[in-house]
């Protein structure tokens, strides 16, 4: 992932709407990608992963899309709920190294 600096970008959505969180990565050798959710005072929690031989993977209410041509990753959350409010990090792995993006704060309005 790429660092986005000190101030986290924030996505504000209405409860029940779909959310899309985007991430760019820079290492063309990365072959494994993960999305994490981090709540205040907690460690990052694994959400979903995808390998470079795929371009889409679905989980429960979440979908990850990978575009290797433009080195872009996105996380889609369906029917966003208040419990989804957190900071979301993408990470890409090349070799044994995971590189984390700077994070996006998702705020869900009831």
């Amino acid at each position, binding site marked *: *992932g790429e*660092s986005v600096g*000190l*101030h*986290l970008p924030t996505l504000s959505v209405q409860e029940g709407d779909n959310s899309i969180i985007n991430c760019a990565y820079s290492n063309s050798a990365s*072959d*494994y990608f*993960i999305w*994490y959710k981090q709540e205040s*005072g*907690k*460690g*990052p*929690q*694994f959400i979903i*992963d995808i*390998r470079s031989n795929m371009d889409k993977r679905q989980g429960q209410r979440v979908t990850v899309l990978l575009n290797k041509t433009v080195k872009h990753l996105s996380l889609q959350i369906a029917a966003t709920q208040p419990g989804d409010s957190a900071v979301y*990090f993408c*990470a890409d*792995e090349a070799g*044994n*190294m*995971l*590189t*984390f*993006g*700077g*994070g996006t704060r998702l705020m869900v309005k009831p």
Partner: protein
Amino acid sequence: GAGVSQSPSNKVTEKGKDVELRCDPISGHTALYWYRQSLGQGLEFLIYFQGNSAPDKSGLPSDRFSAERTGGSVSTLTIQRTQQEDSAVYLCASSSDRNQPQHFGDGTRLSIL
């Protein structure tokens, strides 16, 4: 529990003191990672252990930082002569293999006065 356990959860110490942070990985996980997270930032890689191989220390910011992993399980991260810029949350993660998700503990929040 079955997750990654870190202790202490909070540590406040005076500048110049040494601190030790502990990580208990998930049982059976051969890979163990330490990261540092400053307020509002992403995660900064510090060090990586894989089985009995020599650790990858490429992320350690200075020679005041060191880590060891005993018996392929518990790890301790030591910071000597702490400085105020060392204040951060130190996170530990473990995984069963490469291309498998890393599972994180809740971190140690370190505050240097």
